[in-house]
């Protein structure tokens, strides 16, 4: 019986190493700080995409509202940074010094109660995890306990993304409105706008990204990961095997929300502001496209998908701004029609077998001719 008990199989280990070399060595050495910061921005979406791999790829729960959780994480971080930037000394020209500038413009004279915890960094970090989890739990419990699933769930999450944007824009005095929360300066006294800070933040982000990859891989390899796959196929059979399907779906949705929120919080740090344009329907769908392009069953694919699509977006919209949306749409159609398993599927079907054959023929040259018929361990598992 060949049951794989290793944490990463051979091809996953190669993927892990390749990604680590690229993100830790090649990109920081070859890119200037402006481009490296762009990569950092792209990578914040990789967190969302990893969450979508678990929730959509494995659990079959398509969420078109991940921007909401990305935004919640991002806004939590932005609120802390904004409060730090709005010290009495910095805001003494306002009619009410000590509150964020947009509140002053909207005739608020007092900090709203829900802003108060964000004076504290530990509470902020806690909120980045808890706020999206609780929100996802409420949505998940309300939907999945009532057996709302599939396309209905997708539409509802999309509606929530739309509602969230409208809410943020409408409540200008509390949220900064359409401009978002801008002019962020320091994190616990450390200036995040300098090149050096951006460089350090990039590495912090990559370390966190690998932590998330490991966490996602851990979930995937537990029985819970297999139940998610089982649920996607035969929901009733899982139910009649004694599992509460709703609870497992809620878990997957909450996990995806947490991953998205970490990405959102890092986005705020890397880019220096947060606005409703990263919350709504369009960014949420783009996040699904990153996952689909990378391959919705592959954790590493999610990272590559986020990097490549965003890289294409930047370079295409630099030269042909109007064409990008068509490009994105075409990409999505191409993935759905031709490569349902995305880049990781192409890799597993076309590249991996060649590498295996190459390795096998090299081995057999030292041995006795054409004897080995190597099968990649774990390659068909995806």
């Amino acid at each position, binding site marked *: 019986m060949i049951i794989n008990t290793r944490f990463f199989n051979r091809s996953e280990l190669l993927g892990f190493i390749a990604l680590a070399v690229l993100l830790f060595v090649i990109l920081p050495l070859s890119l200037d700080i402006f481009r490296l910061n762009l990569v950092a921005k792209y990578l914040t979406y990789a967190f969302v995409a990893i969450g979508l791999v678990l929730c959509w790829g494995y659990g079959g729960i398509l969420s078109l509202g991940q921007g909401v959780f990305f935004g919640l994480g991002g806004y939590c971080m932005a609120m802390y940074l904004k409060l730090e930037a709005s010290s009495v000394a910095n805001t003494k020209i306002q009619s009410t010094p000590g509150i964020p500038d947009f509140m002053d413009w909207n005739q608020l004279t007092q900090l709203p109660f829900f802003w108060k915890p964000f004076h504290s960094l530990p509470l902020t970090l806690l909120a980045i995890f808890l706020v999206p989890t609780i929100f996802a739990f409420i949505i998940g419990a309300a939907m999945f306990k009532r057996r709302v699933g599939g396309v209905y769930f997708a539409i509802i999450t999309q509606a929530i993304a739309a509602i969230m944007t409208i809410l943020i824009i409408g409540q200008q005095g509390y949220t900064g409105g359409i401009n978002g929360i801008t002019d962020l300066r320091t994190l616990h006294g450390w200036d995040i706008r300098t090149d050096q800070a951006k460089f350090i933040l990039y590495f912090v982000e990559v370390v966190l990204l690998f932590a998330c990859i490991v966490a996602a891989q851990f979930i995937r390899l537990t029985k819970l990961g297999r139940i998610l796959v089982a649920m996607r196929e035969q929901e009733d059979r899982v139910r009649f095997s004694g599992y509460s399907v709703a609870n*497992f779906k809620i878990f997957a949705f909450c996990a995806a929300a947490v991953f998205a929120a970490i990405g959102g919080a890092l986005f705020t740090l890397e880019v220096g502001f947060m606005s409703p344009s990263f919350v709504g329907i369009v960014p949420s769908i783009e996040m699904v496209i990153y996952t689909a392009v990378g391959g919705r069953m592959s954790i590493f694919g999610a990272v590559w998908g986020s990097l490549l699509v965003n890289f294409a977006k930047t370079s295409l919209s630099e030269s042909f701004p109007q064409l990008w949306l068509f490009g994105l749409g075409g990409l999505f159609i191409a993935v759905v029609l031709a490569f349902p398993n995305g880049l990781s599927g192409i890799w597993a079907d076309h590249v991996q077998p060649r590498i295996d054959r190459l390795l096998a023929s090299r081995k057999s040259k030292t041995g006795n001719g054409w004897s080995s018929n190597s099968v990649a361990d774990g390659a068909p598992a995806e």
Partner: protein
Amino acid sequence: MIIGHQPKEFLLAVEALTVSFDGFKAVNDLSFYVEENEIRVIIGPNGAGKTTVLDLICGKTKATSGSIQFRGKDLTRLKENEIVQAGVGRKFQTPSVFEDLTVFENLEISFPRGRSVFGSLTFQRDKTVKERVEEVAEMIFLKDRLDTYADQLSHGQKQWLEIGMLLIQDPDLLMLDEPVAGMSVSERAKTAELLNRIIKDRSVLVIEHDMKFVEDIAHKVTVLHQGQILSEGTMEKVKNDPKVIEVYLGH
């Protein structure tokens, strides 16, 4: 009503069970009792409500009225997974196995441990699990296919796998919906042998059309017609019931 008059404790007591879909009563005021270790076969023409009865017991369909008592618990109030945890296992008519998982993983998921979210996160594939999976796999003729993905199995093998998944759950009441339908002659014989082995030490409720098979295994037969019981008793008695011959067996 008078407790002292009940002759013995039934494992399953279905009483005055009714379900109506938009006014159509698929099951109408149905009552029957299943004893411990009894093998009960439900037969009847198409549309008699046989599958609906199983759906009602396992919680897939909610009853309009009536009660289903199982070991003192009212199943009509429980959710599907709670009914499974109470000890009721259900096999569906079409094989429903997890095609993207291996035979081993299919059986492992059905192993009754770590059924909560956090229980399944911390679930360990230990010796007990492996031994039990291998033991069941041997019974269902799939011992050498443990690493095969279930979508590679034949129709009959999928049926066996699903039976194995129920077996590993070790239910007190096993419900099988047409277990030999769509099988080849040799598969059918093997399945009969398998079923004869697994129905020991538990109560079984079977829906089946194959009369030869029914005669082989049934302790008692219930004939359903239009959501109601037409006849009930031993196969011998049911076979000679003029009402049964008219609506079902006569054709």
